[in-house]
């Protein structure tokens, strides 16, 4: 399947909002997905990784994005990247990988990037998400009975009522990390919101690797997180999967940049809302879901 996202993403939005919106509308079970289009090409490699990473949440086997100059620049000079003559050979090979112009896909989907809003999940499956200016949907409006029952059980577990504005939902904890959103760009986006503000709920910031951690510290992002009152932690899976002792208490509601919001994922009885790093940071400094575009400095 090819998903083409064309147009320009609104200011302050990120790859997470694109992929949540895709999952909201598209079932990928039985497919591998190639992402294409101007909005995908405009993304950094970090953003493209967020998209590919969450392909599994759409039900698909894997997600790929054609390598371009940005990809090669990203790989150049990294640990384990080929060097010298071998680099030239590798580049020649990688240049062959993009799909032919004449390639035929089993399914083609087109998405307008300009229509995407900062997105928040409200249920126990990533497809259950809405824009920040929306309200919690009403299962009664669903014709399909199985979907309706699924929505109802999610609302009960999440302790939410249909019609509640998303920006009126208070949260208890914030987690910024995971393989979906803990690369340097994610941390920069979160730091942009934290700068000069203070968290009002306990907040964990967990870099994705030792390399990301040292780069963030070189840029002084760790100081921004710590000054805002967040915890700056060692790399690891942390609260995404409720390990390393980072667990929500039963009933606690968390704005999380991870990829899964299943029941009990962040601890027994935990309530997870998936968001972008900027939206997680905005929730941390306001205590509720807030349109991060209003806070960007």
């Amino acid at each position, binding site marked *: 399947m090819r998903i083409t996202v064309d147009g320009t993403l609104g200011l302050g939005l990120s790859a997470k909002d694109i992929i949540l919106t895709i999952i909201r509308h598209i079932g990928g*079970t*039985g497919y591998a997905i190639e992402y294409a289009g101007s909005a995908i090409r405009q993304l950094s490699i970090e953003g493209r990784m967020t998209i590919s990473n969450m392909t*599994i*949440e759409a*039900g*698909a*086997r894997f997600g790929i994005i054609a390598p371009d100059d940005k990809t090669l620049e990203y790989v150049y000079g990294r640990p384990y990247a*080929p060097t010298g003559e*071998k*680099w030239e*050979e*590798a580049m020649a*090979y990688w240049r062959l990988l993009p799909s032919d112009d004449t390639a035929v896909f089993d399914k083609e989907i087109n998405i307008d990037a300009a229509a995407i809003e900062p997105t928040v999940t409200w249920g126990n*499956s990533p497809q259950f998400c809405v824009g920040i200016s929306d309200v919690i949907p009403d299962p009664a409006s669903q014709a399909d009975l*199985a979907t309706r*029952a*699924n929505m109802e059980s999610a609302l009960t577990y999440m302790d939410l009522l249909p019609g509640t504005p998303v920006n009126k939902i208070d949260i208890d904890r914030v987690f910024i990390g995971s393989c979906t959103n803990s690369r340097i760009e994610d941390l920069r986006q979160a730091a942009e919101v934290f700068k000069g503000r203070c968290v009002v709920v306990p907040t964990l910031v967990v870099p994705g690797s030792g390399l990301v951690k040292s780069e963030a510290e070189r840029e002084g992002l760790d100081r921004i997180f710590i000054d805002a009152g967040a915890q700056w932690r060692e790399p690891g899976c942390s609260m995404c*999967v*409720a*390990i390393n002792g980072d667990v929500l208490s*039963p009933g606690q509601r968390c704005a999380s940049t991870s990829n*899964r919001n*299943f*029941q*009990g*994922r962040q601890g*027994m009885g935990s309530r997870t809302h998936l968001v972008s790093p900027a939206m997680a940071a905005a929730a941390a400094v306001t205590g509720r879901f807030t349109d991060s575009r209003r806070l960007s400095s």
Partner: protein
Amino acid sequence: MQPFRRFSAVAVPIDIPNCDTDQIIPARFLRRAKDDPAYSRFLLHDLRFHADDTETSFIFNQTPYTNAQILVCDINWGCGSSREAAVNALMANHIRTVIAPTFGDIHYSNCIKNGLLPVRLSAANCNHIRIQLHESPGASITIDLDKQAVSGPDRKRYMFDIDPMDKIRLLHGLDDISMTLEHQAEIEAFERDYRKKNRWIF
């Protein structure tokens, strides 16, 4: 891998649509070895046990369903995380078949790879069988893989489809590694050639 031909056992109905692999085995158990004596407890752990480790009233804890080796489930069984531990947790409880209308794609193939037979029956038939299992606790189901038939508690036959290759693997207990090793000479020849042509990878 244990071959799968014909199998009869007590079946338990699991009435949870979209039961994801985090429900089948919560992530905090993933670092435990699959021969851990406690492994069987990790299956559907948070549905089966309270925070203080006492049992809940979940159906799998109720006699005679505690002897079940077949699960009959609802739509999208095993969606979510691709963790193979979900299959390990089923196997630790001697579950050899899961019947459901639809499966998470990766979980389905993880079952096949471990010799556990995932059976797709229509949602109506799964629902019908689950109702029978509630009405007759401890009822058995028989699965004949060669004939691709499930015989329900009502003795009615329900036919199912399976990929012919998957069927052969299960019937003969062939796992990925043993199948791959049958081609060792060709693999080695390929690797020599591939290394020569793609120096940059190595």
